[in-house]
């Protein structure tokens, strides 16, 4: 029993519905009183501040400097952004990123929704299917990219070997600008379908079966049920996955980085024609390979603005018609 705290002892144990007149309410405690709790959660915030929050704003500062990573920084104002505006490679990288994003997100989300619906109606081996479909997401992206590189290799790849058996001449998967994007998108689709499927599955399981039963009694077939019941109810979940996929898809970096690795003899990044050069890969090349940290920072900040715009557009598109 603490002797020093609080009001009169017995009053604390008296059952009461309303505060008796004349008794002061217990004094509100200031935030400092909770220091133990704050201390307990502080590691995350300290690490976050040091390794995420500070670097983010430091990079904004860097975008206005010219810096080689070691020497003295030189303030150049908006010069980096002016360079960016005139830089055809930057715009090429934006185009590449958007194309790869569309080519991967659309099949990913469609595939995920279809798989989730199928899996929802499966009766046996549910756990097995879930794990099997989720595994690609936890596989090392580097290993997967190396594997894809071997499978789609122009001269000695598995895909071309199989096409050869059927009598189709080899397809230049890793040198044609469009096919490069297709291969990267395929890789991303393969990786993210299972992840989105799990989210959709959780959403599907939350829909009460009575709604489906009612639809069945009204004579709705499976396709109609899917489009008129499942999709509208799932809208908030679809919105969530669309936004997450936008953010993930636009950040594609490892896939082209591993598929088209550079080395001393070949400083070329992003594959033939720079067709696989995504914006983040270009940022990496500028900052860390060319030692142009200011320009790299300008690239990512310009790109950040673009992602925000795209997320906003996506939000509007996906929520449209909701109020109607």
């Amino acid at each position: 029993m603490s002797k020093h705290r609080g009001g009169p002892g017995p009053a604390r144990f008296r059952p009461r519905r309303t505060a008796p007149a004349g008794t002061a309410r217990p004094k509100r405690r200031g935030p400092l009183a909770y220091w133990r709790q704050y201390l307990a959660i502080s590691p995350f915030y300290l690490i976050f501040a040091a390794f995420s929050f500070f670097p983010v704003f430091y990079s904004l500062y860097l975008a206005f400097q010219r810096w080689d990573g070691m020497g003295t920084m030189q303030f150049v104002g908006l010069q980096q952004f002016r360079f960016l505006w005139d830089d055809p490679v930057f715009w090429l990288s934006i185009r590449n990123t958007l194309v790869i994003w569309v080519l991967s997100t659309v099949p990913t989300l469609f595939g995920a929704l279809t798989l989730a619906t199928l899996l929802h109606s499966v009766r046996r081996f549910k756990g097995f299917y879930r794990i099997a479909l989720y595994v690609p997401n936890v596989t090392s992206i580097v290993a997967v990219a190396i594997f894809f590189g071997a499978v789609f290799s122009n001269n000695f790849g598995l895909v071309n070997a199989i096409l050869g058996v059927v009598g189709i001449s080899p397809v230049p998967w890793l040198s044609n600008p469009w096919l490069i994007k297709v291969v990267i998108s395929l890789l991303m689709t393969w990786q993210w379908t299972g992840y989105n499927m799990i989210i959709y599955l959780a959403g599907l399981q939350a829909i009460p079966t009575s709604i489906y039963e009612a639809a069945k009694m009204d004579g709705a077939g499976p396709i109609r049920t899917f489009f008129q019941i499942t999709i509208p109810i799932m809208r908030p979940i679809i919105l969530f996955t669309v936004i997450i996929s936008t953010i993930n898809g636009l950040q594609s970096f490892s896939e082209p980085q591993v598929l088209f690795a550079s080395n001393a003899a070949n400083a070329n990044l992003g594959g033939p024609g720079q067709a696989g050069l995504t914006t983040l890969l270009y940022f990496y090349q500028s900052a860390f390979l060319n030692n142009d940290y200011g320009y790299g920072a300008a690239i990512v900040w310009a790109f950040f603005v673009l992602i925000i715009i795209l997320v906003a557009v996506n939000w509007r598109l996906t929520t449209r018609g909701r109020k109607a």
Partner: protein
Amino acid sequence: MDLSRRGFLQAAALTAAASGLTVACGGSSGSGGTKNGKNLTLWYWGGALSDKVVAEAKTHFSSEIKLTTASIGGDFKQKLTTTLAAGTSVPDITGIKGEDIASFLPNANRFLDLNDLGFKKISSQYLDWKTKLAQTEDGKQIGFPIDIGPTAMFYREDFFAKAGVDTDPAKVAALVSTWEDYFQLGVELQKKNPGTYLVNNISSVFNIAVGQGTQRFIDKDNHFIGDGDHIRAAWTTAVRPYTLGIDAKINDQTWNAAVGKNLLTELGAAWHALDIEQAAPQTKGKWRVCANPVGPANQGGSYLALPKQCRNPEEAFKIISWILSPANDARGFTDAAIFPAAPAAYAMPAMTGPDAFFGGQKVIEVFGPAAKAIKVAYEAPADAAVMAPFMTELTNIEAKGKKPDDAWKDAVSQAKQIARRQGVS
């Protein structure tokens, strides 16, 4: 979460151990401040030095110094840059890759001048052009040469023989004394060996053709000269095999699979021999090597440097000059295909022996003279960045069939922009 008490204790102990380890790593080479430290750290990457020599150095100096070595993986330059910028946990001795040395020169004040420590007295033992590349304009020496990458032409003896070409290295070298002779020979060889190609891609030709000159993309006054005649000539040379149809156009990672099958020649540095050997072990004995057309270039080759924070410069310099003494440098060639920067090593038994992969040829007879004949070209800090668009556009020619003239124009305008961005006028 149901975590048993034992599980919790184990996890807690592991976390504590891990953080302790981190602290230990971080603290081991802090900016101690004393200039006669007993502990020195050495950073290098796998294959930069002979591991055997490094291990011996540890015991050799154990009475005065405890040498700790760390083999740093991943992007070495980036890790070193970050550490130097942060100023703590800086290694006492570090490797620097040849292609990165130019970008470290503007920040030479981050390193000790090796001339102050006695490099001047022994510098004549090392190739002059290599030493100069790690020197600032005012003569400060930041890099101690480890190895170099003199280029040569690797060729398939069996394909040559099938086409009725004399396969003796000296004779082949005479046959390919100019680029045009080399390409014409390629056309002939391809006729006799259908499905084969002379070069793997045209970027590799461009790389060597540029390296044969005395000027690169930026001159000493920091002007962009990437649109000059010397680069244009290298470009024209590089495009030739493409127009002649003797270019295999390999720009993805299928080189490994192609090298033992349908490539007639490979242009590359001495260390490239190991790449070929690993990618195509079944072709053992079928390769030979001779001087590449026109003259040698240099590709790669590294340095050791002492960052400013070095805790015991005198001892550190003693260690690196021991590790890189001609005799130990020669052992690097046997252990890890590191081609020494000290010409005295070329006469040592470790290097003069026959190489079974090259059908018993004594490859030093090709690389030794090449090493000494390499010309010095000023390499600006932004050189690698400015060169990149040329490589990209050459790839565009191969992959998309872009017209060489259009590709040249785009490459130059791109390169100019990158140069301007990096402060080159």
